[in-house]
């Protein structure tokens, strides 16, 4: 598989074995850090970053309002997580046929991850969990669930998930850690920031020139982003999502605010308040650290090589044919 995965993996494993992961410090960051600058004088966020993580989005309910693990607790979680990535799936099962990530250097233990003492990515509400849905949000969730039951994935490609169809995975804000290829590249010009997400190799272009929002009728999978510098923090507001993007069940009214602050040479603190009164009873917010990694970001020709969809549909049609023949013989 990819060379950088192997390189990244070797680094991650070496660090793990040495018990010296980079950036093991608590989230309180050094206020004295002098942020490097681009030639345009802006804070320099450029380079290759990973947000791979063992931190769950929502905090396990049993932890209540415990927001941080101790180092020892985190060590144990990482050890278990790394080990899980290397477990062989059971031969002959769907899971085994589908993927064994460890063969390709794609587990977080191999590909690298960011050490984060937080018990959840969500930091507000204080219980670390997504707030309850509004009646509106619940009705949409129920309708989606019903549509999934009534329209099996194996019937037609449009019934499958957006990632399976190679439409979008990982690049719609807020940027969430994903299971593998959880890497990104940032390049800055005077009035634009580009964030290239490795999964499906999808680039976001964020204008910083104070331009007006897009008209309401323009709807995009990744929304439309507008950014500005708030001191040393890059603030990006994104709206104009499609209803089908449906981040965590959100509607097309979702507004995501992202705040990227370089807190050390190796880390960017990524914070993301989200608000959608059509979906949740209150706004909520998450944060996690991104960490310097090695490039490059590889091409992801997902759609071009999407044998999975063809094979899934072909398998389902073959099974239907087999059942028809069996029924005909039975008569």
């Amino acid at each position: 598989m990819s060379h950088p995965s192997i390189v990244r993996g070797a680094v991650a494993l070496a660090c793990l074995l040495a018990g010296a992961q980079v950036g093991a410090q608590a989230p309180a960051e050094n206020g004295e850090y002098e942020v490097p600058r681009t030639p345009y004088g802006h804070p320099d966020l450029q380079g290759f970053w990973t947000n791979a993580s063992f931190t769950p989005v929502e905090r396990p309910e049993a932890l209540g309002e415990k927001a941080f693990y101790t180092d020892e607790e985190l060590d144990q979680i990482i050890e278990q997580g790394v080990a899980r990535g290397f477990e062989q799936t059971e031969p002959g099962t769907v899971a085994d046929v589908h993927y064994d990530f460890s063969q390709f250097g794609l587990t977080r233990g191999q590909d690298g991850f960011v050490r984060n003492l937080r018990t959840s990515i969500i930091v507000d509400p204080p219980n670390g969990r997504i707030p309850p849905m509004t009646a509106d949000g619940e009705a949409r969730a129920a309708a989606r669930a019903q549509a999934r039951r009534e329209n099996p994935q194996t019937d037609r490609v449009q019934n499958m998930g957006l990632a399976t169809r190679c439409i979008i995975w990982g690049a719609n804000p807020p940027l969430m850690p994903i299971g593998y290829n959880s890497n990104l590249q940032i390049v800055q010009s005077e009035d634009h920031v580009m964030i290239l997400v490795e999964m499906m190799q999808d680039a976001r272009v964020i204008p910083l020139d104070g331009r007006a929002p897009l008209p309401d009728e323009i709807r995009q999978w990744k929304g439309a982003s507008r950014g500005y510098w708030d001191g040393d923090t890059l603030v990006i507001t994104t709206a104009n999502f499609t209803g089908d993007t449906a981040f965590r069940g959100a509607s097309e009214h979702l507004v995501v605010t992202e705040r990227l602050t370089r807190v050390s040479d190796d880390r960017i603190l990524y914070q993301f308040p989200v608000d959608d009164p059509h979906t949740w009873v209150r706004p909520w917010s998450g944060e996690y650290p991104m960490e310097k990694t090695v490039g490059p970001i590889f091409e992801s020709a997902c759609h071009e090589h999407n044998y999975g969809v063809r094979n899934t549909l072909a398998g389902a049609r073959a099974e239907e044919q087999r059942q028809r023949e069996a029924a005909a013989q039975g008569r």
Partner: protein
Amino acid sequence: MTEGTTGARVAFAAIVACWICGTAAASDAYEPPRTPSGQPDFNGIWQAMNEANWGLEARDAAAGPVIELGAAYAEPPSLGYVAGGKIPYQEWALEQRDENYAKRLELDPEIKCYLPGVPRATYMPHPFQVIQSDEHIMLLYRYRSAVRTVYMKDHQPAPAPSWMGWSNGWFEGDTLVIETTGFNGLTWFDRAGNFHSENLRVIERFTHLSDDALRYEATIIDPQVFTRSWTISMPLYRRLEENAELLEFKCVPFVEDLIYGDLAKQEE
């Protein structure tokens, strides 16, 4: 006044005169916009305004391949973009090209929303945006969200075959030169079936003609398919709309029925 002082004055006058004439001469030469590090600045949204994606060689207007689309998808005429007129195909490859054209509805990667390859991405009927830093120049194409990272430092060989290749770049004077290798051989140059092998090497040259126009050249090197290297050239234009922005053109959902429709469950 001493002789020495006079000599100095004459010399000074001569320097001033030369400085003035030098400025006059320099003002005749176009100066491209520059980044803080002094490199020509290619940031912006650009687009070809021509028929190159229909076919790189000179061609007459022709009916399109879909009767129902009539004049809307008919093929426009073009003077061509290839220096010397014809693409120097090997004999077998010319036959292959003609067959590709005959089967273009079935075989053209653009029909299926596949990544467009190089140089085709740059002259498709879609804009692309340049985001330029000293280390990386990003070429972000609207079509299929195709992305190229041009490595301006730390040049490396292509790590693996890919659709968009691996691009190393440098400046020659005020021209941005990009060498791209590591192709998988699955892309075409246009809708006319012009093609290449996985041994393709492309050298592109971007030069400012003005603040709002670039000269674009691409030299195609692929001894497996052509008898010699060949070069295309065309201008690229800045999208001058004040609100110009690279909108999403995620075309996968538009081709799913075309690609997978034959395998959808039939109503009983």
